[in-house]
Every structure is written in structure tokens, then in C-alpha cells.
């Protein structure tokens, strides 16, 4: 049955080769070419990349993308950890229902849900009303996140809110998977050795959930860096992210080589830390074995 094993493993492999690796190589090729008005590619140049590195706007946008993705990941972690923690400790019979609630948003269109936030956060939208009543706008203004009272839309606040809303389940699920598998006796052992519940949480539960935290952080951070829809709908002109620049280069400026270079740099920006991370992980596993 070896041919069966190979076929089953081979199908997704071929799929990725055809629809990810090959297109990416094409994008790479375009990024170092000239393109005339008819769309014909020719020559070889690296000037797009040198331009990217020298143009302050691109550098700023890349950094902003990383910043918003990092903030979103951090907020997701803060919200998801307690949720996943109590979900994993909830009554066994209640857990499937809780899990279903986490997945429920996926049943409606992502685009619709993000668009709905525009209404909720607009002047008179009920989330905006509640936030105003709680004086959240004063706090956000004090930190310079929003320009004026009640103006939540098209700010860093609405951007991060939208991304957190979208990606929160991707943080909860790996954390829940990890926390629900943790051995309760280890906590008892910690208590027995004099650790209060709080200390036991930080010295045992959190370190043991590191793989879950890392998996969740990757699942949130990576798509956030290249996110297009949320910044387009909820982020204002002040919160330029690289996904929108990419869109503009391709479809507004029609500058395919430039757009391709932007895309390649973005992939490298995400891939390099990821590769380093998985190498470090493989090394530590090797050391164990």
C-alpha cells in the first residue's frame, strides 16, 4: 500500500507546488523584471528592491504592519488565554458548546462581519455609544490613538479591534488544545510543594502552554502582517499597512514588478523569523532525543 500513502501525501504536496510555490516563483521573476505597457516582461534588474529599501514610506509601512500585527497578537493572547484556560477547566459536558461558540463567527462571511463593525463603531453605533459612556474615548485620546471624542472609525483602534475580532479564534483554539491536555496532577504537585494557585499558574501552567502560545501567535501574527480587508474597511489613512500598498501597486498603479517586490519582501519578512523559530524548535527537540 505504499503507493496509497504516497498518493495521499502527494496530493496536497502537488497542490501547494502548483498553487503556492510556482506562483511565488513567478512573482519573484516579475519583481526583478521590466514590464512594458503591453505587459511584456523583459530584462533583469534589482532596482525595485533598492527603491523599497530607500523609500521611507515603504519602510514605514512595513514597520507599521509588523507593529499592528504584534499589537493584535498581544491583545489576542491576553483575551484568549483566560478564555481558553477556563474553557479547558469547564465542565466536560459544557466544553463542546463553548468550543462551538468560538467557531460560530465562521458561519457568516468574514467580510460582512468586518463591515458590520463600521456601523457599530460609527457615530451613534451602539458599540460607540457604550464606549463613550465608559469614557473609553477619553482614554484612547489621552494615548493619541483616536483624534477626537467618539471618533473610533478609521483609527489604529478600529484597525486593531477588527483584527483582534477576526483572529481571536485562531489564538483560542491552539491554547485550548494545549491547556485541556495538561496534566492536573502537575498543579497538585506544585500546590503540594508550597506554590499558591497564582504561583503554580505562572511556574507550571504557563511554561507548559508555551507550544500553544507560540502556535497561536504564529496563526495570528502571520496573516495580520499581510492583512488587507480589515485595514481597508476599518483602518484610516493614518494606518497604512503593507496589504493595502500591495493592492494599490497592483491595481491602482498597475506596476506589477514593483508590486511583486513588495510582496516578496513581505513574505521574506514573515518567513525568516518563522524559519529561525522552527529551526530553534527542531534543535531543542534534537537535544532531547
Amino acid at each position, binding site marked *: 500500500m505504499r503507493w496509497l500513502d504516497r498518493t495521499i501525501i502527494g496530493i496536497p504536496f502537488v497542490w501547494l507546488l502548483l498553487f503556492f510555490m510556482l506562483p511565488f516563483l513567478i512573482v519573484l521573476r516579475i519583481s526583478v523584471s521590466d514590464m512594458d505597457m503591453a505587459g511584456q516582461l523583459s530584462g533583469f534588474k534589482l532596482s525595485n528592491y533598492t527603491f523599497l529599501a530607500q523609500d521611507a514610506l515603504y519602510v514605514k509601512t512595513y514597520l507599521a504592519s509588523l507593529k499592528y500585527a504584534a499589537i493584535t497578537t498581544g491583545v489576542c493572547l491576553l483575551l484568549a488565554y483566560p478564555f481558553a484556560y477556563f474553557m479547558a477547566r469547564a465542565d466536560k459536558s459544557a466544553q463542546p458548546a463553548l468550543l462551538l461558540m468560538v467557531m460560530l463567527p465562521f458561519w457568516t462571511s468574514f467580510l460582512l462581519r468586518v463591515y458590520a463593525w463600521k456601523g457599530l463603531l460609527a457615530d451613534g453605533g451602539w458599540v460607540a455609544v457604550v464606549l463613550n459612556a465608559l469614557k473609553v474615548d477619553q482614554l484612547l485620546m489621552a494615548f493619541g490613538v483616536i483624534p477626537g471624542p467618539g471618533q473610533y472609525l478609521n483609527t489604529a483602534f478600529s484597525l486593531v479591534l477588527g483584527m483582534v475580532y477576526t483572529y481571536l479564534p485562531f489564538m483560542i483554539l491552539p491554547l485550548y488544545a494545549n491547556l485541556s491536555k495538561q496534566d492536573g496532577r502537575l498543579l497538585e504537585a*506544585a*500546590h*503540594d510543594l508550597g*506554590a499558591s494557585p497564582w504561583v503554580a499558574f505562572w511556574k507550571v501552567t504557563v511554561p*507548559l502552554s508555551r507550544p500553544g502560545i507560540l502556535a497561536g501567535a504564529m496563526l495570528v501574527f502571520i496573516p495580520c502582517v499581510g492583512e488587507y480587508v480589515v485595514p481597508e474597511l476599518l483602518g484610516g489613512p493614518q494606518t497604512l499597512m503593507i496589504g493595502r500598498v500591495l493592492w494599490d501597486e497592483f491595481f491602482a498603479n498597475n506596476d506589477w514588478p514593483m508590486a511583486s517586490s513588495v510582496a516578496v519582501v513581505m513574505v521574506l519578512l514573515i518567513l525568516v523569523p518563522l524559519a529561525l523559530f522552527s529551526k530553534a524548535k527542531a534543535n531543542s527537540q534534537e537535544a532531547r532525543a
Partner: protein
Amino acid sequence: MTPFLSIQEVVKDFGASAGGAAFRAVDHVSLEIAQGEIFALLGSSGCGKSTLLRMLAGFEMPTSGSIRLKGQDLVKLPPHERPLNMMFQSYALFPHLSVWENIAFGLKRQGLPKAQIAERVEAMLKLVQLSPFAKRKPHQLSGGQQQRVALARSLARQPSLLLLDEPLGALDKKLREETQIELVHILKSVGVTCVMVTHDQEEAMTMASRIAVMSEGRILQVGQPRDIYENPATRFVADFIGNVNVLDGNLAVRPEKIRLSRDLPPEQALRPLKQVQGRVRDIAYFGSYTVYHLQLPSGQTLKVSQSNTERHPDDALRQDDQAWAWWSPSAQVVLKQ
């Protein structure tokens, strides 16, 4: 004088709050344990011994009753404030910490200075002979080594009471026998008072100074190992600890106290012996001894265990042979129930 550890009328019900019928796991247990004892709670699974141990550690709250250690009421204290430590079943070592850090975990919680922690950890490593393995993670150790780390970790804080939950349960038979003696040696050298839980009667007999036999949440008999074996109070205890033949409803004779031969011995004339004739129905050879199943005229089967002192006995009994079983009247015990 107040006893070192006093357990009074402890009851534990489970499931009462859920509205269903409560299950009584521990039923009015009272025990007094002296300083320096190694006390074993012995029983089959579900007899309540582990629940009782978990109440001592603080992981379960008694429904009623009191637990006092050196006069101090333990029930009110959360687990992390109790002056005792536990060696967990299959050890519960922290997988993300090295052997050294596992042992130091409890000491760090006490807020001891670094130098003192290091000194104490080194002493513990030496005690369990694991000094070369200090930097290893638990999963890099053998089962026996993990067991010693767990012991070192639970002794590091110098607890006044040590709880052991099936301390050797995760080891294979050969290693278990070797470790029993080594473990008792370490516990005695430290001088810590121990309460251990086990389902293995041999483990309880070889390690404990006193044993409490439990069944269905109650304590059936408390005593020294020899006491419990030679003077079992009830049929359940007689049956649970070792093998036993019960004759005439309440007379118990251990199989090894019975002799077996083709003819009655000549000393029969000198002093009276209990005797019975039967047919050898089954022979089970265990190497160092053989168990014969003797079918009696009454229909009962008598188990007789004989040491194999000779390699090739001249006149060995075979299946279906007629044989006499005989024992001295002092070898039998009258059971209460």
C-alpha cells in the same frame, strides 16, 4: 499526649451536590499514627485509601471529621500551606524543569536564600544517588530514576509528614522488590513519618511498620504486618492478605502452615494434629514452592503450599494421588465473621 497524626471520624461523600445519590468514599475513618511510623493504607482500587490520602494532602475536603497533625487542624489549610509533602503516583514530575529544578521547586517557594537551596538540592541528589543526572529532564530518566527524583523532591522541604501514593506502582516487579528495601532505608535514615497508599499487599508488608486494611471506605483492621497476617480478624482481611483456607465457616489456615504427605507422620501419636485426607486435584509449580489443591471428601478444596527444599524429591505427589494434609492446632485462627 496528643498523637502525631490524628484522623477522627472522617467521612467523604462524592456527588451529593449534583443532586444524585451521594457516594460515600470514606466512611467514618479514625486513625492515630505515631511519629516515625511508616503507615500503609492497603486495599483494592476504589476502597477509599487514595481519597483519604488526598484529604491529608488537602486536595479533597472531608465532608465531616477532623484531621490533626501535631495538634494543628489541617482541614482548614489549603494544600500549599500544609507542613507535609506528597510523592505522587507516577510521580507528577515537572516535564519542563530539570531534575535539579524539580527538587528546588519547593525550596524556592519557601523563599530560602540561593546558597541554601543549592546546598539542600545537592544533599537530596546525594541521598537518592542522582548527582550526575542533575541537569537532565525527567523524560531522559528511567522509571527507577524518576521515582528517586520524586522522592528527593518530596523530601527536600523536610516535611514532618510524607505521603506516598503507590510509591512503587509504576515500576516493574523485579525493580519494585529491590526498591522497596532501598526506599525504606532512605525514609528511615531521614526519620520522616510516612503514610503510604498501596494495593500491593507485599509492598505494604515489607515496607510498613503498621498497616490499615480498607474496604468500601472503612478500616477493617489495623496492626503490624505480622499481626494482620497471623491474626486476621475477618475473612476479608485473611483473604486479602495472602492466601487462606477457611474451614467449618470460620476456621482459617494459611496454605504454608499445612504439611502434605502420603501417610500420616509418626508424631501423630505424640501430639494431636488436625488432619484431613483428600485427592490431589491440581498442582501449581512456582519454582521455590508448589501449591497443591486437595479435593476433600466434603467437596471443599484445600490449598497447601510446600517449599521445594529438594531438587528431585524421591516420592513427589502426583495428580489424583491420595494424600494427608495435617497442621498443628495453633496454626489455625478463628475468624470473627
